């Protein structure tokens, strides 16, 4: 009697390695795909572990009824999830949280740092030629998804910290150039805190609205346990917002990084 499609186990249709220990799963889940929007996340069960792992939704194909998750093996839980193969099922709660603003006609700059890059792909698909995608990685060997971004029609800029691919340096350098040129309505970013800080301050400097996707350790994933706190401001007052429910995408004005 009490069933919910959010709780089924979902079939993995395809598994790809995008880089060393970077996995992409294509998962069949029509109901989730129907509801999902860019920037939301899935809370993925890692067999044998107490807590689920939050992974951003990288792509959504509503017609095929699939979503894609791209993740890096960081610790034991992601290692277990990475052992799943096509034909296996994955236990996930999705879509959770809020996504990025999607408004046709806006000119956007999308910034992804490292494993913060995948969620940018679905936004890039939405904005196409109206988007500039700037992604940054440690080194050439960590670079992922460049062809996928190019296919969206977006203007694509690649940076690496060590200069082994694309521009030498951080994503903030090309961002600064583009913001200087003007004609940007919105900046969307996901990546390490240091990068987000740089991006937010540049956007602010240029008076451009900015959205960031944050990370915090999670319990429930649905807003019930208050463990995923991030410092926020509402009506001038500081409080702890919930990354899982009030985010993971926040307007940069609302949060203290």
């Amino acid at each position: 009697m009490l069933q919910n499609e959010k709780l089924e186990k979902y079939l993995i249709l395809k598994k790809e390695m995008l880089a060393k220990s970077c996995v992409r799963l294509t998962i069949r889940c029509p109901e989730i795909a129907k509801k999902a929007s860019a920037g939301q996340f899935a809370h993925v069960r890692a067999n044998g572990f107490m807590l689920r792992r939050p992974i951003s939704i990288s792509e959504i194909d509503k017609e095929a009824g699939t979503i894609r998750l791209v993740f890096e093996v960081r610790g034991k839980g992601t290692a277990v999830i990475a052992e799943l193969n096509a034909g296996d099922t994955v236990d996930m709660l999705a879509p959770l949280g809020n996504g990025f603003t999607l408004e046709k006609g806006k000119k956007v700059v999308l910034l992804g740092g490292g494993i913060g890059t995948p969620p940018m792909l679905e936004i890039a698909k939405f904005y196409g030629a109206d988007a500039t995608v700037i992604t940054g990685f440690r080194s050439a060997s960590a670079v992922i998804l460049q062809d996928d971004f190019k296919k969206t029609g977006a203007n694509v800029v690649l940076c690496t910290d060590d200069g082994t691919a694309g521009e030498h340096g951080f994503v903030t350098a090309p961002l600064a150039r583009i913001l200087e040129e003007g004609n940007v309505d919105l900046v969307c970013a996901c990546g390490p805190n240091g990068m987000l800080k740089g991006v937010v301050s540049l956007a602010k400097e240029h008076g451009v609205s900015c959205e960031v996707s944050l990370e915090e350790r999670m319990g429930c994933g649905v807003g019930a346990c208050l463990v995923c706190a991030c410092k926020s401001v509402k009506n001038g007052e500081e409080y702890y917002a919930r990354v899982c429910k009030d985010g993971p995408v926040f307007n940069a004005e609302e949060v203290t990084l």
Partner: protein
Amino acid sequence: MADLSVKMAGVPFKNPIIPASGTFGFGSEYTDYYPVSVLGGMSLKGTTLHQRAGNPPPRIAETPAGMLNSVGLQNPGIDAFLAHELPLIANEDTVKIANVAGSTIEDCEEIAKKLEGTAIDMIELNISCPNVKQGGVAFGVDPKMAGAVTRAVRKNTTKPLMVKLSPNVTDITEIARAVEAEGADAVSLINTLLGMRIDINTRRPILKNNVGGMSGPAVFPIALRMVWQVANAVKIPVSGMGGVSTWKDAVEMMMAGATTVQIGAALFQNPMAPVEIIEGMNAWLDEQGIQSVSEIIGSVRPW
């Protein structure tokens, strides 16, 4: 279909399963998964007199078969709770339990007064939160303090009063007896056990609060032992919790002496846990030919 209803402190529950305080928000976060009316009751997030910001993140760490949390009672305060949260669930057909936490006896009295005449069916007085610096836990580890705060709240409420006990004590039955003596209608246990994890790379505790409360399946045997001890030490009913994640765990808890069973951390792994536990318990009772779940309460036969 067995009779799953139980009565605790005079309050009828349609079944013994209750999401535990702090893991189920104010009751509306899981409505995408099931209506709260399928639950025996729900214990709402711990509420203090004034708004509390809670502790800085990270507030959660994973442990073998368990987790640590250091939320630190983040909540909007009793007035905001009554104004904005309670109305959303006031008409739900399930037992609504307010989890009350105060750093002083006066705070607790004040909150109890404010709950009079509201849709709240029962008070769970939390004297055991390990995550707040002043008060809270101090009440829970000293029988005199525990008795005093119970007495004070008892005087200020007409609602059934349940007191939530801390496991971080030498003898939990002593505290249970103290609160029983001062008018508690029930006790609930266990709150979390104080624990710690360290990130060896940064040489920092994983939790920003350094330590946090441990819960989840890992603590189940400790919780079961305490429930059994307390059920044998007091006459008032016991609401058992700590690590329950399957219907079998819930049956063990009830056999040990619990009248109701609360489910906390298990929700994070499986939001359907309370419902699956209700269904599993029912199926088992039918299979065993047990007509009413209340028959199993305290039915363990020690050696």
